[in-house]
């Protein structure tokens, strides 16, 4: 494309957007809404995955020590536990802590009934790196000296893993469905825009314009419209999510929310890019049908 044509294209894009202002606005709005929906689903996925990981990281193995261990022996056992393959971290719960927790959970008076006696041993909470390892690690721990009993949510692990995997899949499913929906919606819209200008395209061809000469303004128009729509969507999704994340963190403190601004920015940038991409690609593809004159 020569310099003269390039100048024509730029002028043409501007005047076409202005003169078909109504169509331009409709396209921007459509892309905006589609991208908002897609963006919302992306954040849903991120949080679902995050939540899943969070749940998994809370799988714990309770290791009860033999009652007659000295403090030294207990901490030695702790060291050995830390050294095991697959162990992420451990946490000591002394017999006093155990009793206090029991009193809180059940009733003070029950503890009083015990008459100052503490039936609880010292215990360790062991966290593993991967939820799949819980079982193996628990077996290994069971064979260590000084260990009286090992308890872990045997019947919980299966369902939990199922649930967390499910959460991830649902997140991905939602993104996939909404991505398809967004793309189809935008494509339909662009196709209608191009369709409503098919006469114009035909005339241009009859007057001797080459395909690329006709295509460029459409391509750029699609990009501009997609860019503007994507930017609006980014603004909406960005501000909406920010508000949402802060609201949750301040009210539902126990629910983990993805709030790494780095990741968020990446998602938002992706939205703008997708908007522009579909805008441009959609224009080109829709145009093809009408260029055969």
């Amino acid at each position: 494309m020569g310099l003269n044509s390039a100048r024509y294209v730029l002028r043409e894009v501007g005047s076409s957007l202005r003169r078909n202002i109504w169509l331009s606005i409709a396209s921007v709005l459509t892309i905006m809404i589609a991208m908002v929906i897609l963006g919302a689903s992306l954040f849903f996925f991120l949080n679902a995955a995050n939540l899943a990981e969070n749940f998994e990281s809370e799988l714990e193995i309770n290791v009860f020590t033999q009652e007659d261990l000295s403090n030294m022996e207990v901490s030695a056992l702790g060291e050995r536990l830390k050294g095991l393959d697959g162990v992420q971290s451990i946490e000591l719960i002394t017999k006093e802590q155990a009793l206090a927790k029991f009193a809180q959970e059940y009733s003070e008076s029950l503890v009083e009934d015990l008459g100052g006696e503490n039936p609880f041993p010292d215990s360790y909470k062991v966290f593993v790196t991967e939820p799949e390892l819980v079982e193996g690690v628990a077996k290994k721990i069971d064979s260590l000296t000084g260990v009286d009993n090992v308890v872990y949510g045997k019947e919980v692990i299966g369902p939990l893993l199922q649930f967390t995997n499910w959460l991830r899949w649902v997140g991905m499913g939602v993104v996939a469905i909404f991505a398809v929906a967004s793309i189809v919606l935008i494509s339909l819209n662009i196709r209608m825009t191009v369709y409503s200008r098919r006469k114009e395209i035909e005339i241009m061809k009859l007057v001797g314009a080459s395909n690329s000469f006709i295509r460029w303004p459409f391509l750029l128009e699609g990009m501009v419209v997609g860019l503007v729509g994507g930017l609006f969507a980014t603004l909406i999704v960005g501000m909406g999510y920010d508000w949402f994340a802060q609201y949750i963190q301040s009210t539902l403190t126990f629910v983990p929310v993805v709030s790494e601004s780095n990741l968020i920015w990446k998602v938002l940038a992706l939205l703008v890019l997708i908007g522009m991409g579909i805008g441009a690609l959609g224009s080109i593809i829709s145009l093809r049908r009408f260029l055969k004159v």
Partner: protein
Amino acid sequence: MIQMTNVAKIYPNGARALVDISLKINKGEFVFLVGPSGAGKSTLIRLLYREEMASRGQVIVNGWNILRMREREVPHFRRNIGVIFQDFKLLANKTAFENVAFALEAIGVSPKEVRLRTKKMLKLVGLGHKENAFPDELSGGEQQRVSVARAIINNPSLLVADEPTGNLDADTAWEIMELLYNINRRGTTIVMATHARDIVEQMQKRVIVIEDGRVVRDENMGAIEYGT
């Protein structure tokens, strides 16, 4: 310049617009295409710039075999042909100026030259004062003249005109005919479909009469005469 051999055109809906047309038009000729409404004049003209393809026969224009042309050669081929459409085919979203300028922009002429030549051309067809009007802000005759201006602005070697004076008063029509006459004298071949009896009679050029998709008469210097 133009050679048609046993050309037939049947439209997708079954209408037989051209039955059997053979004709030869030489470089520099000025040819009138006349015939009753629905005879096939516009169809014949559409074959020349490849808006439609012949169903049978051979069409050679400007040395190009139209039926064998590749898709991407078409724009290049059309650049040497100016077309005045019966229904004008102006771009509704562009002003008179932009419509005419488009034919130049499409072949990469510099903006400055586009401006100059377009302005001059619009004045020539008497629309200097209407350059910023959109097609639907122009009278029928004015639209037709914009269409004329766009067709001749890049000095095509062949000009096909489909009733270019149908919406014009006699005086303006003659101005346009003078324009075409001058272009023809400078070497452009012209094929013009028309119903204007007086124009054909006065110009004394070759006249091809078409009726029901056939050439029924072809005279070097004739008048309109057909039907019963």
